[in-house]
């Protein structure tokens, strides 16, 4: 396996409408450790797939340097980077069987005599036969890992979506590359199959101890799979941290609202500081902040955020440091949980509770949270986290 280092990577596309070009990726610095599972996540158009394709060698790098296992590969073609990629649409060769699909890359990379040479010399013929057998063994081993043995002689059109994806993964595994790249491989699958494949991918990662870089727009998928998340927006890295840190200490308002479902409640207001302490104040919404929460900020416009799973309703709200009354606007009962939309003065807040504790729509209920669970973001620039 290998390390991957991206230093100030950028990609600019030429455009007739913009003389300076269109910057799809800018100033990306990421270091992927050996055996790490890193997920690139962000909304559509944020540059995550472009970044992955630059790592693969399918897009040129306009600025910066990319190193795989310490070797700069900016100008190395894709076929020589020893990378395997699993595509969103599987990219299985439709005219080849599953076995041939998985062996395709091996035949190209192994050194053995050509058919012509094998025809004229018994020695070459024996070498070719031995290497072909080794390739078959490798394909068989990878197929057993992914439970593909019964499917080896089928064509891709005879497989289901999940089976095709496993073949695509198997084709990558059998090559034993330095780095695995995944470009939204589960997005074409139904929700149930996505969850199953996610578990299989985690198991595979544990088994192979492989360096994997995974692209997705699904933040739940990103949180479930990655050892580390790299959140991207408009071609730039917003945060590069573990899933827990991204969730509990988002670097800015964008990360806070992108990661987490439902997204974080954000209220725009002002930070007031006095001898008594710090206070966040918006219309009908005042929160006495814990000491030091807003230490990095100057009094003025600011955003207060609180995750829905930290907002309590009903009896659970009575013991909270911050309490108020709210009108229940809507309740979504999702089986194991209920997402509740509440109106507090001029603001809508989302809360999460157990279905049996969810209030009825239209009624008034208590709402509360611990201010220590709140987040503060600047009201300008990148809306960076303050506290």
């Amino acid at each position: 396996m290998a390390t991957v280092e991206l230093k100030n990577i950028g990609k600019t596309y030429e455009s007739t409408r913009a003389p300076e070009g269109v910057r799809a990726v800018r100033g990306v610095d990421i270091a992927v450790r050996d055996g790490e599972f890193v997920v690139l996540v962000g909304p559509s158009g944020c540059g995550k797939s472009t970044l992955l394709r630059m790592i693969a060698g399918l897009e040129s790098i306009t600025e910066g340097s990319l190193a795989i296992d310490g070797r700069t590969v900016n100008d190395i073609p894709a076929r020589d980077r020893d990378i395997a990629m699993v595509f969103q649409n599987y990219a299985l060769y439709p005219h080849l069987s599953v076995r041939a699909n998985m062996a395709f890359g091996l035949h190209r990379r192994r050194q053995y005599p050509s058919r012509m040479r094998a025809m004229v010399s018994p020695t070459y013929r024996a070498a070719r036969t031995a290497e072909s057998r080794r390739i078959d063994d490798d394909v068989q081993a990878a197929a057993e890992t992914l439970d593909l043995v019964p499917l080896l002689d089928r064509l891709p059109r005879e497989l289901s979506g999940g089976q095709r994806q496993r073949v695509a993964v198997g084709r990558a595994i059998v090559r034993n590359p330095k780095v695995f790249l995944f470009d939204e491989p589960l997005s074409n699958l139904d929700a149930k199959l996505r969850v199953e494949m996610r578990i299989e991918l985690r198991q595979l990662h544990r088994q192979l101890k492989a360096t994997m870089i995974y692209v997705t727009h699904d933040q739940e998928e990103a949180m479930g799979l990655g050892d580390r998340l790299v959140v991207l927006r408009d071609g730039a890295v917003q945060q590069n941290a573990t899933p827990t840190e991204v969730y509990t200490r988002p670097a800015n308002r964008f990360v806070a609202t992108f990661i987490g479902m439902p997204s974080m409640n954000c209220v725009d207001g002002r930070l007031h500081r006095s001898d008594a302490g710090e206070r966040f104040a918006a219309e009908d919404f005042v929160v006495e902040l814990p000491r030091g929460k807003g230490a990095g900020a100057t009094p003025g416009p600011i955003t207060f955020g609180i995750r829905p799973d930290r907002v309590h309703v009903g009896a659970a709200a009575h013991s909270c440091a911050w309490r108020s009354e709210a009108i229940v606007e809507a309740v979504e009962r999702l089986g194991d949980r209920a997402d509740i939309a509440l109106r507090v003065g001029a603001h809508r807040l989302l809360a999460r509770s157990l279905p049996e504790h969810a209030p009825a729509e239209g009624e008034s209920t208590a709402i509360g949270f611990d201010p220590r669970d709140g987040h503060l973001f600047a009201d300008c620039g990148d809306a960076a986290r303050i506290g």
Partner: protein
Amino acid sequence: MNGPSNTASRVTAHVLLIAGALLMLLPFIWMLCVSLLPSEQAQAATVSGDLKRLIPLRPEWSNYPDALAQMGSRRWNGFLDALANSIVIATISVVATVLSSSLVGFAFARIRFRGRGVLFVIMLATMMLPAQVTMIPLFLVFRKLGWVDTILPLVVPSFFGSAFFIFMYRQFIAQIPESLIEAAALDGHGWIGIWWRIALPLSRPVTAICAVFTFIYVWNDFLGPLVYLHSDEQATLAIALNSFRNQFGGVNNVHLLMAASVVTMLPCVLIFIVAQKQFVEGLGRGAVKG
């Protein structure tokens, strides 16, 4: 929905189509029938135009060996030489056209290079040139090379692609998902490997069209062999058939002429029948989509 009006329209459509097909097939049927008639009956049917006399009640299968034996200057060898020459020229031309046209079409479809658009337009523009315009300059070139009275002028140009088929391959290969090409690149293949192992196998419908059209054109080509092949041993079936017509033309031997024509035409029909499924699929799947 099934109903009386739908049945009526389906029946009408079938009647019209069958009538059209019979009209198209009429010359072939006439040729086949005359080739199986005895000499006197064939002459009478040809002169009178009476369709009833066309029906071979007792088919004269001996017309075929009689005709083929008299093709060319040497008994039987004339026909066999012509057949062999035609097969060699057609086979080389088909293989060369398919390989060269698919390779160039793949490059236009998948490889980004400076001037690609301009080159593509220039390539298409060559389709506008009539063959008569380039006939004399080409002959002068081949004569200078010493290739006259060899098959080289007839097969070598096939190795440089055909504008029409390059265009068809380009359109078809452009529809192959980019991810397949990228996957092959990541698997270690260069452009030639991707063309040979991915693009060409997936272009089977276009290859069928290219092969069938090229074969039919080359097999029936009369002008090219007439200009470049001068000796009897080099003659193709088209030339041999023309010589046969000159030698045994007229009403008296029309049955033999038709028999020789049927034999000459047969490979084209068989090739089309064999490749028919791929042929229709290629036309329907956008092989010629603009």
